[in-house]
């Protein structure tokens, strides 16, 4: 049984408004097979735990410093260079968040740039992306 589309003119039944025609808005019904909804599911939400489970590794670095020494041969004060090893360390996001990180390493972590290892972990802790 086919239903004919209704014409859009409706006569108002109120005697005061007799003669005034109210038009119903047209509504396209679509076909039976025409879907009318698209669903967008949320991306896998990053749980509060996962950000803090990531880790940041501060690499061991060596630094060249100079100091004054007395040359044994000439008995003069000279400066010599020597190498210092700055040990690195690995911290969990939780440790960084709570501040359980020595200052030197914390400065290194704060200076991380996108592309460097540990940047994403740190950014997710402080909320910067």
């Amino acid at each position, binding site marked *: 049984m*086919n239903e004919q589309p209704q014409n859009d003119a409706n006569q108002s039944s109120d005697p005061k408004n007799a003669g005034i025609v109210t038009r*119903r808005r*047209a*509504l396209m*019904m*679509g076909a039976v097979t025409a879907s*009318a909804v*698209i669903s*967008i599911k949320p991306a896998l939400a990053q749980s509060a735990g996962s950000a803090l489970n990531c880790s940041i590794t501060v690499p061991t670095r060596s630094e060249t410093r100079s100091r004054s020494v007395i040359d044994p041969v000439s008995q003069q004060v000279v400066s010599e260079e020597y190498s210092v090893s700055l040990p690195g360390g690995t911290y969990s996001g939780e440790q960084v968040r709570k501040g359980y990180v020595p200052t030197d390493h914390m400065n290194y972590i704060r200076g991380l740039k996108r592309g460097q290892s540990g940047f994403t972990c740190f950014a997710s802790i402080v909320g910067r992306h």
Partner: protein
Amino acid sequence: MVARYQMIDSADYKLQALDAISILFHRTSGTTHIVADPMPQIIEVMGSDCLSAAEIEQRLQKLYAMELPQDTEETETFEQIITARLEEFVALGLVQKTN
């Protein structure tokens, strides 16, 4: 027994009409649905009532001049189209169905 349909609790979703479409955010699932005609209008006339497709069609007729697209199969009725749309929503968890 004729099938009856009811929208989920109004507190569980937010329906926002835009110009050509509506956005329905389903709080329980966190899913956002982009909803096109005639679904926003069907949701509107259903309210929180439990209705058959035929009853929904009657309510729509009072407010809207329903039209079929030009290339539709001649055998499709408004009731069939409304049923198809409601079944879609049942599958998405937005409408409850009782037989």
